């Protein structure tokens, strides 16, 4: 249980609740309240990973979201998650973590040899090495992917549950540090609906890691607790902990990733693992704080080199000393706070290297008074050590900081704290399309011009004092809620005691050393992607000017941390090398998500059975009980075929087709799109949307129609029936139902609002059993006695209303098979009863249910097209050989003018033809390409492709349809279909009707 670097007292951890966890198989201990990072440091574990490219040993750099090095694979099996930042993983009992990107193990890593050959891995390494020859890329890629990788994806489906939440609020406060808490309190007291979200397990932000701040005379965390308690008592305030505002989109729409149970290590049955909040906020207050900037010096990546604020945070918040003998390197007073906080906690501070020549002020005095040696005007010329920093080489700098003078001096230390100043966390502001402003004096980007209704306060607005952050938070919230019309009740800003900051930050982008950058050691800019200052400078020498190009060429800022610690350093080094200002180099674009978010959170409940709605017909239970196999058609589950014992797919389909041709078959046709068209202009409306004429269609008569788009291409087809002068029943394809309804509505609302036509989708109101075959009249006669079924009384393409099996029905004598056929429509709630009645009445006639495959064969035998299968949006009625359905008399209909374009009458357009294979048993694959002249290998000039292909039991051979260039003029021609490893010879048939070309069967 020994935690050698844990202090005896202090911190926000619960020493009464020890927790055991595993890191790379080793069992270690920490306390409730720890993060994995603080627990590892407490155990003296600094080496936590190998770097991306050079496999250099790496330690923990930061305290939170900014961490570039300590990326961890958490958990096992289906629940494993890669690339998590150890600094943000809350410790739980049994936590199982593994380091990444090392082989065979962390302490001895074969890939580290890359480091010795670093000259082989310059900026643009991938571009330069692997662009040529292209064929070798696949070989290289495999090696590289193994050598340079991050964590591993889980191998099975995610067993956890995720949810999405939608919320609206007056004010969304992003970040629960001093500024955010103050803003939420002011807005909440004024009665606004407030959501406060913070990524940490508890509110307080930076205050959780400071020992030298008091608010209202008490420790700052007492003030935090009071404010949180008051916010929790307000009914209109929602507090979200462990909730990262990760995306800021148009019109104040933000997403928040809430980790509900991750910190427990186990899921709970009542809540999801994570929630993705989608919040529309009237106003947004950004209080996202600031991230400290690392210093760029030689070998600044040795484990033990950390951000100063992180080292202080580990000591104050977690009671962990990252080093027994830390050296502080700083350009500002904040580094002195770290030195003092560590010294107060029994660290033997090795000294403070201050980049400023003459530091002064209370913090400097306090450090000197404590006996801490201050090396003013010094540079860190390099860090020494392997798996842990052992010493620093320091040297006095020239006045301008560009070089060193005199010799170097070695200072032993086991940790180095880097205080390079704070970069405001402007990520969300930038995502919202706000324009950043470069503050030259402070060398930071600040929020400039807003794009959305938001305001930045506190650290992300460049404020360094807690007192000011609280005041700004209150003021911003008051302005926002007043603007929204609330009565303002403003909290008084509390008195804050905090160390005064003296002279500003001295910025030196690359600390000078004994040799120029790039000559000796490595000066890391981007720790995660292993990009050095030398790489960035090389990119500029090779002609890159824009930061967007430098980024892509060097990969700086392109890691999963999006360059939270590296972007500004990279920009500044480019600017310095080119001799231009930072704004001239550009700013990087911040994109959502702020920190990586699981795909599960985005998917929410839309997985598995809930991924897409499934529509079933009224007869679905019968199909299932009778062994049907199903296929998806649009959102519908349709019976595909009904195999009997031992039957193959082909055998079942052949049997079903034969029954429908020779006896009687029945198809569940309920899924066909149905639109009720009503109003006195209905016939004229149909005239405009179909290619043929509708005005004279008699009541009770049906007509087939083809719909085109304005460009003349076939869009949908179906049979429409006149129920009354002003009332039609339109059918569409199953997949096109919604599209057609939308399309018709659009014309009615936008082009022809004067027409009296109303459309209603009735697809789900009618269940349809379509009976087909020579015995269908006999069958229907047994269960329908109030309709005269004779050919004269009930001819083809007519509709009769009556009663079938005691159910009120509309019976349509239409046929998609060429056989005598009746489509019996009944209200959906009677669909199953109708189906069962049909099956019972037809039992002795050998009634055979048939599925969609048999339906496809039956229609193809007759050459009936399926829109979307035999057409693809670039096919006209003429291409299909269907000019018989295109009215020459009507002055206009949708698609008429489009069809008249000269290109659409070219003879070499792709046209629908029938194909016979030379071998009658060969069934071509649909989609196969057709060529005129065979060549030994591709490329060959392609004529078109096979659209429909089946074995036809009625014809006794295979049949196919294809769209072929100039196909109508190719009757009798022999063409070729190259398949994998062989070629099939085909002949173009005379027309596409393969069976009963005289149409002698449709009347029974």
């Amino acid at each position, binding site marked *: 249980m020994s935690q050698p670097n844990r202090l005896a007292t202090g911190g926000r951890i619960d020493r009464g609740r020890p927790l055991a966890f595993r890191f790379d198989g080793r069992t270690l201990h920490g306390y409730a309240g720890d993060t994995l990072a603080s627990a590892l440091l407490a155990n003296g574990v600094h080496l936590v990973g190998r770097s991306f490219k050079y496999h250099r040993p790496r330690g923990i750099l930061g305290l939170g979201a900014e961490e570039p090095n300590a990326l961890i694979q958490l958990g096992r099996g289906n629940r494993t998650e890669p690339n998590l930042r150890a600094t943000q993983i809350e410790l739980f009992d049994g936590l199982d973590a593994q380091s990444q990107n090392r082989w065979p193990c962390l302490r001895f890593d074969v890939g580290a040899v890359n480091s010795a050959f670093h000259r082989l891995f310059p900026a643009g390494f991938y571009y330069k090495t692997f662009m040529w020859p292209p064929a070798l890329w696949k070989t290289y890629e495999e090696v590289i992917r193994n050598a340079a990788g991050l964590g591993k994806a889980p191998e099975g489906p995610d067993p956890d549950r995720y949810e999405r939440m939608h919320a609206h609020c007056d004010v969304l406060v992003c970040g629960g540090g001093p500024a955010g808490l103050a803003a939420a309190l002011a807005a909440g007291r004024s009665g606004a609906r407030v959501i406060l979200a913070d990524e940490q397990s508890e509110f307080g932000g930076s205050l959780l890691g400071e020992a030298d701040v008091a608010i209202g005379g008490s420790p700052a965390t007492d003030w935090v607790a009071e404010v949180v308690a008051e916010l929790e008592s307000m009914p209109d305030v929602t507090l979200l902990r462990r909730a990262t505002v990760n995306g800021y989109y148009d*019109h104040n729409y933000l997403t928040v990733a809430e980790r509900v149970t991750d910190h427990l290590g186990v899921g709970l049955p009542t809540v999801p693992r994570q929630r993705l909040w989608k919040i*529309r906020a009237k106003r947004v207050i950004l209080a996202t704080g600031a991230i400290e900037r690392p210093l760029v010096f030689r070998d600044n990546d040795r484990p033990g080199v950390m951000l100063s604020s992180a080292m202080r945070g580990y000591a104050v918040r977690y009671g962990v000393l990252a080093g027994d003998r830390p050296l502080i390197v700083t350009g500002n007073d904040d580094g002195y706070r770290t030195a003092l906080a560590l010294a107060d906690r029994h660290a033997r501070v090795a000294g403070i290297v201050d980049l400023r020549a003459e530091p002064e002020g209370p913090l400097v005095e306090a450090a000197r008074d404590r006996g801490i040696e201050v090396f003013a005007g010094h540079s860190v010329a390099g860090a020494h050590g392997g798996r842990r920093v052992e010493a620093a080489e320091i040297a006095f700098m020239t006045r301008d900081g560009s070089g060193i003078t005199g010799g170097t001096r070695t200072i032993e230390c086991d940790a180095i704290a880097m205080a390079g100043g704070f970069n405001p966390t402007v990520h969300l502001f930038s995502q919202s399309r706000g324009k950043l402003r470069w503050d030259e004096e402070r060398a930071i980007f600040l929020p400039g011009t807003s794009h959305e209704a938001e305001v930045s306060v506190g650290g992300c607005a460049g404020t360094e004092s807690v007192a000011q952050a609280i005041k700004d938070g209150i003021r911003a919230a008051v302005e926002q809620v007043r603007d929204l019309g609330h009565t303002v009740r403003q909290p008084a800003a509390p008195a804050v005691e905090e160390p005064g900051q003296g002279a500003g930050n001295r910025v030196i982008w690359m600390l000078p050393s004994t040799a120029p950058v790039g000559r000796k050691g490595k000066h890391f800019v981007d720790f995660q992607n292993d990009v050095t200052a030398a790489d960035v400078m090389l990119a500029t020498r090779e002609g890159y000017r824009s930061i967007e190009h430098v980024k892509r060429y060097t990969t700086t800022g392109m890691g999963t941390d999006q360059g939270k610690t590296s972007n500004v350093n990279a920009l500044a080094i480019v600017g310095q090398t080119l001799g231009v200002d930072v704004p001239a180099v550009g700013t990087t674009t911040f994109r959502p998500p702020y920190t990586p978010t699981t795909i599960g959170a985005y998917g929410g409940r839309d997985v598995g059975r809930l991924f897409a709605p499934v529509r079933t017909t009224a007869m679905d239970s019968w199909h299932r009980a009778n062994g049907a196999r199903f296929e998806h058609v649009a959102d519908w589950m349709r019976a595909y075929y009904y195999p009997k014992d031992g039957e193959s797919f082909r055998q079942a389909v052949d049997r079903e087709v034969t029954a429908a041709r020779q006896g009687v078959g029945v198809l569940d046709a309920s899924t066909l799109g149905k639109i009720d068209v009503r109003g006195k202009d209905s016939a004229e409306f149909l005239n405009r949307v179909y290619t043929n004429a509708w005005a004279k269609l008699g009541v009770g008569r049906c007509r087939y129609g083809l719909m085109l788009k304005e460009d003349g291409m076939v869009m949908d087809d179906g049979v429409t029936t006149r129920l009354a002068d002003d009332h039609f029943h339109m059918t569409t394809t199953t997949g096109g139902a919604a599209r057609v309804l939308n399309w018709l*509505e659009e014309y009615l609302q936008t082009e022809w609002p004067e027409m009296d036509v109303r459309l209603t989708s009735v697809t789900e109101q009618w269940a349809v059993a379509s009976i087909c075959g020579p015995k269908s009249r006999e069958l229907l006669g047994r269960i329908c006695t109030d309709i005269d079924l004779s050919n004269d009384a009930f001819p083809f393409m007519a509709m009769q209303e009556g009663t079938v099996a005691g159910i009120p029905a509309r019976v349509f004598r239409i046929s998609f098979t060429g056989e005598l056929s009746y489509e019996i429509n009944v209200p959906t709630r009677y669909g199953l009863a109708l189906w069962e009645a049909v099956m019972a009445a037809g039992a002795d006639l050998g009634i055979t249910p048939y599925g969609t495959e048999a339906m496809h064969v039956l229609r193809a035998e007759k050459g009936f097209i399926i829109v979307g299968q035999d057409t693809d949006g670039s096919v006209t009625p003429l291409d299909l050989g269907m000019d018989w359905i295109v009215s020459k008399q009507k002055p*206009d209909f949708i698609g008429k*003018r489009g069809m008249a*374009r000269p290109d659409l009458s070219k003879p070499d357009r792709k046209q629908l033809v029938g194909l016979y294979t030379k071998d009658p048993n060969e069934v071509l694959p649909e989609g196969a390409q057709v060529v005129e002249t065979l060549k030994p290998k591709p490329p060959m000039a392609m004529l078109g492709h096979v659209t429909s292909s089946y074995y036809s039991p009625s014809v006794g051979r295979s049949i196919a349809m294809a769209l072929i260039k100039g196909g109508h003029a190719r009757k009798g021609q022999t063409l070729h279909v190259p398949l994998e490893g062989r070629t099939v010879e085909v002949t173009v048939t005379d027309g596409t009707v393969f069976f009963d070309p005289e149409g002698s069967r449709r009347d029974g």
Partner: protein
Amino acid sequence: MLLITCPYCGPRDDAEFSYGNQAHIARPVDPSVCSDQEWAEYLYYRDNPKGPFAERWMHAAGCRRWFHVVRDTNTHAILQTYKVGEWPDPAIDPREGTS
């Protein structure tokens, strides 16, 4: 994620709407007299301005009515929404020759 004010239902997320491209392009009364060029312009040619753009939207998951929106394609600001048959405010009317 835009916030669009349906003239019939009020402000709603853009997920409830479907997009219908440029507004105020009337279908020719007699397409048969259009030249190929005129027909191609009606069918295919659309403006692509940086700035205010009048476009059609349909409240697909709501009232299912088509209406018009003037949207700034650069800032994504919704400048005006109005019903079919109505016209944009002259001050922001993006149509050629109207401002």
